[in-house]
């Protein structure tokens, strides 16, 4: 897969403070890439370098094959950028806002009307066409902003926290929009703290902390990498049964480790760390019932992104 955004050892220093430290980013074409990190991790700074607004202190970055330092205009042609702050013009109608930016992208006047109609349709703001931009709700502004980034049909969308400050419904709407745009063939590179959003729609993810890339890759790889084994929790009546479970299961194939957990709500629990496949899980279940153990619960813990995030970020945020 070809990379549409690539950085190599990108560094940004403000005085002595290093905001981005040797960051190497790889965003494949056509992906939805979630750029996740705590506050102050350097997400915005990285995006500003990619959008040619700030010059890197060291390192290199390419967008759509163009170097951000040497061919800034070619990069601008390839990207649609949505900053974390929505830039509002008071005194401007929704369609005028889009018309203005379309004109800034050199789209001829006779094509602009149709383009604006299409964009408004896409972000579901057609009924707001004549409204003043600064009177829109935050969610609508965000959608309008997204429409703006699409005016010149860019290859890549670089979106800085597109879902921040939105209510759950608006957040879902934006998320659906992003998926739709990805289907239209756009690469979407967006930052977020909201891991649920990322988990839901991303194909790729990169986690940054204190200006450094902690981990990145496709969602599937990431899951496999972060959770090398499955966790099965068996709930039984008492501690004695738990001991029996432990001794039985420990000898089975692919079982890495068996732990007796603290009893919860009067029930004893056993955690089985298991490296086998689905058949293996079924086999454990079968074995327990064959031995006449009354199993009250047999669940496989799914590792969600949140715990993944907590695990890889060490809290070294400045």
């Amino acid at each position, binding site marked *: 897969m070809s990379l549409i955004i690539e950085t190599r050892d990108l560094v940004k220093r403000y005085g002595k403070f290093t905001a981005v430290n040797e960051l190497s980013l790889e965003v494949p074409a056509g992906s939805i890439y979630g750029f996740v990190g705590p506050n102050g991790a350097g997400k915005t700074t990285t995006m500003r370098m990619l959008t040619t607004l700030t010059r890197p202190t060291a390192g290199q970055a390419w967008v759509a094959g163009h170097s951000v330092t040497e061919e800034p205009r070619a990069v601008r042609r390839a990207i649609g950028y949505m900053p974390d702050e929505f830039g509002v013009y008071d*005194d401007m109608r929704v369609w005028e806002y889009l018309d203005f930016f379309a004109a800034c992208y050199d789209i001829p006047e006779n094509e602009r009307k149709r383009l604006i109609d299409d964009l408004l349709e896409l972000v579901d703001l057609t009924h707001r066409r004549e409204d003043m931009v600064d009177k829109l709700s935050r969610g609508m502004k965000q959608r309008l902003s997204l429409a703006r980034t699409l005016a010149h049909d860019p290859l890549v969308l670089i979106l800085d926290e597109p879902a921040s400050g939105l209510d759950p419904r608006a957040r879902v709407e934006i998320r659906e929009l992003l998926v739709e745009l990805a289907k239209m063939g756009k690469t979407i590179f967006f930052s977020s703290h909201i891991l649920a959003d990322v988990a839901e729609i991303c194909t790729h993810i990169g986690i940054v902390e204190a200006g450094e890339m902690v981990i990145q890759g496709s969602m599937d790889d990431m899951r496999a990498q972060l959770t090398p084994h499955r966790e099965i929790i068996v709930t039984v009546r008492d501690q004695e049964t738990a001991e029996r479970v432990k001794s039985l299961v420990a000898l089975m194939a692919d079982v890495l480790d068996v732990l007796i957990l603290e009893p919860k709500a009067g029930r004893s629990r056993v955690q089985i760390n298991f490296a086998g496949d689905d058949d293996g899980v079924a086999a454990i279940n079968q074995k327990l019932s064959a031995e006449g153990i009354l199993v009250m619960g047999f669940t496989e813990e799914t590792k969600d992104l949140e715990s993944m995030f907590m695990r890889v970020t060490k809290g070294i945020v400045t």
Partner: protein
Amino acid sequence: MAEAESTRQMIDVPEEALTPREIRLERAAVVLRWGAIVNGVLVGLLLVAGLLGGLRVFPDLFTNLQGLLLGRAVLAGDASLAVVIFLTLVDISLLLVLMVGVLAREIWTLPAIWLVAAVNGLAAALLGFLPALITIAAAAGCWVVIMRDMSAFRVNPVMLKELRGRMRGVRAFIVLTIYLGLMSAFTILLYLVFTTSTIQATGSSAVGAIGRVLFGGLVGIELLLIIFIAPAFTAGAITGERERQTYDLLRTTLLASPSFVIGKLESALGFILLLLFSAIPLQSIAFLFGGVTELELVLSFVILAVTAVTLGTVGIFFSAITPRTLSASVRSYTVALAVTFGIPIILSFPLFNAFVSAASGFGSGVSSSPLVETIFIYLGLILVSLNPVATSLVSQQLLAEKQAIGLWTVTLTSDGSTIPLVSPWISFSVFYLVIATILIVLAVREMRKVEA
């Protein structure tokens, strides 16, 4: 401290591979720039020639130059040299304006190129103004380059956006109404004050004098208005976008910096021109009383418009180099006030007096050597040309007393010879437009820098 400074530091963006359209526009601009440079070299050479001729190093120099450069004009040799220098300076400013227009892809550049070429053709045909060929060649070269891509030229999007906002609803209409109301009230007040005071003093009043006072008062008020409005409209041009967080959005679009600057300037000037035009009927009341000519009306309009353009660019320039609108406004006002009120005060009085009395036909009163007297008079002209108020007064005086709208001469008191001069409104316009162009270029350069 060091950190804060380093974050504000900006560096120039490198040149990059341009699109065919950008290459073409760049090339067209280069043609125009070379036209301006060649004209500039010519001015330099002519100034040297003027010095040599004045010192009588080569006795026939002036006559020869006149034959070559301004063959058809019936003027003295030294006067025609001054005319040639002046016309060349006009051409330089026109070429610079065209250059900015081409780079900003302004639609008005297309007719303007033809206009410049036509005016120069006229000057060549009527006056035998040979250097016109340089400008015509530059304009033609530029046209040949841009002819292949006329669609590159369009209505400026920034201007469109700004004007849409400014003209929305009833606000602009109310502003206009209040403005005209105030102007009318002022006219009436001026009329009442003037008639009662002169009637008390002399028992009668000259009708022409009322016209002059009304006209002068209105132009003065308009000038004041421009001084306060032009920087206010433009000082927020770039800082305002920064403060609204739209500047970054604009910078990630393909909008070129010259387009942005010109668009902001056009929208500010558009509104100011509207104010100026709407006051013309009021000024015409002065015609009813007589004593004012149409020529004066045109003159005052040109001076006001040029002042508005230049003060507008001052605002844009400070907006580009300062982080906040407030400080940009303060700096622009400081410059505007210094230029319009400061200069007349510090106008070193002997120079100014020498010049003004020369302008009123009394001779300069400085009667040492002809050279010193000449220098004094020219310096006086330059000083007057720095300031719109002095320019208006002197130009008007020349018009009234010598019927001189363009060229005029002064007879030196020291040796009785005559030296040629232009009416200050012309030198003022050239000087101010050159300053405006330079400020635009500087603002564009500042905008092209990238945060380090």
